[in-house]
Structure formats: structure tokens, C-alpha cells
């Protein structure tokens, strides 16, 4: 073994160590669809995707979480309600009316990193969902939490995707079981 290999070995070690704490970051552009089957609520709902939502991201890892929520919100709404209209920045398409408007907003998107690649990393996404009536009165609003953890050397994309799926499943559960929404649906169907 050549002694000149020593410095090369150390450079290799330092490079590997740096790679352990770094990672490329992005998240699936395909919407999540594996929701549990359930009876849809009889309500015509507009899903309001705002520019504020689309621009939500974590500057540190450049994961465009807002875009992912914007892609997934209409799909989730179609699993929950029997009629869904896509809205942008509070604007309905021409000649459309809805009984309620569902607006998602990223309340928090944060991640821990382990001291080394083997340390635990937790990704947490909190989204505030607001359902308001056509006059803008809030019917229901809650902050749903999606979380996933893995070793820090796991790709942030993978952990964030799992946290996003956790968030969407919990959101489905929270919206479908909320007494305030159920009461509103009953009132509207009378």
C-alpha cells in the first residue's frame, strides 16, 4: 500500500461524512391516492389553492411542500365530498357556485437532523385546513399534523413523502369525522 494513499483516504472519509448529513431534496409530484374507502359527504365544495400555499417551502432543504399540498388537496377533497370545484386564490370558475370552500395553509414544516447519519431525523408537517361557507364564515378549522422519522442518512424526499402521506390520511379522518362539518352538511341537504 502506497503511503500517498493516506491523504486520499482522509479526503474520502471527510467527503463521506459530509454526504451523510447532506441530501438531495424533492418530493413526489404525483398525488397520494391510497385513502380508505368511505361514503362521500353530499356537499359541493371549492378547493381553494392560494399562491401563499404554493410558495410554502422550507428554505433550508428546498422541499416544495406547498406545491405538494396544492397537488394533493383537490384529490383529498374528491375522496371526501361528492362535488369538488378547483379554485385559485379564492376565485371560482365562471358560472360556478359552491356551498363551502376548503382552504389549506402550511402552518409548520420542520425537520430535525441527527448528529450523524445514524441519528434520528424527524419530519413534521402541520397544515391548517379551513372550511368556510359561501359567505366566508368559518364552519370548521383545524391544524393537522403529519410526521415521519428515519435515520438522517435516509433521503429527505422519502421521509417528507411519508410525513405527507400521514398528514393526508389524518386530514381525511379529521374532516370526515368533524361534527361541525357533519352538521353543516345536514343543514345544507335539507
Amino acid at each position, binding site marked *: *500500500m502506497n503511503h500517498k494513499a493516506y*491523504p486520499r483516504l*482522509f*479526503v474520502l*472519509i*471527510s*467527503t463521506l*461524512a*459530509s454526504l451523510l*448529513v447532506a441530501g438531495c431534496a424533492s418530493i413526489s409530484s404525483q398525488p397520494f391516492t391510497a385513502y380508505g374507502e368511505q361514503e362521500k359527504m353530499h356537499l359541493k365544495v371549492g378547493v381553494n389553492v392560494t399562491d401563499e400555499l404554493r410558495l410554502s417551502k422550507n428554505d433550508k432543504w428546498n422541499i416544495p411542500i406547498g406545491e405538494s399540498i396544492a397537488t394533493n388537496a383537490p384529490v383529498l377533497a374528491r375522496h371526501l365530498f361528492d362535488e369538488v370545484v378547483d379554485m385559485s386564490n379564492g376565485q371560482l370558475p365562471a358560472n360556478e357556485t359552491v356551498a363551502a370552500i376548503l382552504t389549506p395553509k402550511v*402552518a*409548520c414544516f*420542520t*425537520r*430535525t*437532523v*441527527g*448528529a*450523524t*447519519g*445514524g*441519528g*434520528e431525523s*424527524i419530519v*413534521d408537517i*402541520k397544515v*391548517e385546513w379551513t372550511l368556510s361557507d359561501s359567505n366566508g*364564515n*368559518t*364552519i*370548521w*378549522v*383545524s*391544524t393537522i399534523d403529519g410526521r415521519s422519522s428515519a435515520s438522517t442518512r435516509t433521503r429527505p424526499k422519502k421521509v417528507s413523502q411519508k410525513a405527507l402521506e400521514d398528514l393526508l390520511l389524518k386530514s381525511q379522518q379529521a374532516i370526515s369525522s*368533524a*361534527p*361541525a362539518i357533519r*352538521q353543516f352538511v345536514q343543514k345544507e341537504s335539507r
Partner: protein
Amino acid sequence: MKTIKATGARLNNLPTKLVTSLLPVLLLFWGSGCSTMKVTPLTTGSADSYTQHEQKNGVVVGIRPMTDKREIKNMFKVNLLNNGLLPVLVVAENKNPAASFIIASDKVSILNEANGTTSSSQRKKVTSGTGAALRDTGSVMVAAGALAAPLLVVGAPLLFTGMQKASNASVIEFNLADKEFYTWTLGLGEKAQGFVYFQFPKDSRPSGNYRVVAEVTNPATGETTTFDFPANLTLPK
């Protein structure tokens, strides 16, 4: 008598030298991995178990300003008081069988009776001042450590200490965000909990009488109920 070493002997020692020099580095590596700071879970009692609680229209709201340094450090891994921040725990519970209630994070505020100013939760300002500073220090050390890594003795401790600091900073920021009080609609039997972070000037700790005010709205009727708690926020020196 002159000892003559065969050239092969130096080569045979190479694995031993390699193991001896790498062992401390590996120990540091695994040691810091095991010591990744843990995220403390927030466990709370029922809203009416807190000394300061009120029940109105079937909704119970309890509050507890956290003024003990040790308790704050156990919960948040950093003494928030030194960073001009006082955490106030808020627990809300709906015991009304017929109605849901909205408790919004921006409707929980702290009123200074002396000057009449109101402040809401200020977590974002604080993260940029505490965890971020630690993270920046960590990043610089990681970078310096990576550059100095060929000089193993200097580079490795810098690298690992930097990684440790950056990791700690991320846990502190996560803890603050995770434990904040967020907006909820409470159905029957549901409970919301979290901290509102009251920011005060670092050089002038709060003393005297404050009020913690929470507004709860019934979305079906639009009726708002106000919960108002007197709070003496005099902090220990």
C-alpha cells in the same frame, strides 16, 4: 549493532496504524450519533386540572405560565427566558354535548395591564435568535472540519462537534414549533394543547400583572366567549 528493518515490516504495521488512528474518530462518530438530542413529548392533564381554569358554555380552558428555568430547559432543551421568551401552556377542552368550538392560535394573547399592550405568540422571532445561531455555528464548524479533515486530529473533532451543534439546533427549533398552540375546532370530548410564546425584551424581564386572554367561537352561531386569566409573570432573577 544496527538493526535492519525489512521494508515489508512497515507495510505490515499499516493496518494497525490505520485502526489506531481511525478508532478515536469512529468512537466520536458513533458517540455523537447516540447523543442526538431527543424531542420531548408534551403531556398535559385535563383543562380543569390546572389551577387557573375557567368553564364557560361547556368549554374549559386552563393555562399555566412556565416560569421555572429547569422545567423550561427539560421541555425545550434551552432556557427560553434567556432569549426573552416565556412559554404559557394553554389547554382547551370541549365538554358541550351539542356544539363545537373554534379556538384559534391568533385569538390567544397576553395583555400587559401596565401599558395596555397585547402580544400574540412569537415563536418565529425566537427561532431565528436561538436555534439558528446554534445551527450557524454548527454549519461553520462542519465546513471547517470537512476542510481540515485531512489533518485528522484537528478536523474530526471540529466536524463532529459542528454536526452535534447543528443537530441540537434543529431539535430546539423543532421543539418550539411542535409545541406551539395551533388552531383547532373542538368537538365533544376533544382537547387542544400547546404553548403560546410571550416575547419580552431580554434586558427587561416581565414583572407585575398581565392577563392571558383566549377567545373561543361557536361556528354554528358565531357567538364568541372570552376567557380571561390574571397572570403574575414576575420571573426569577
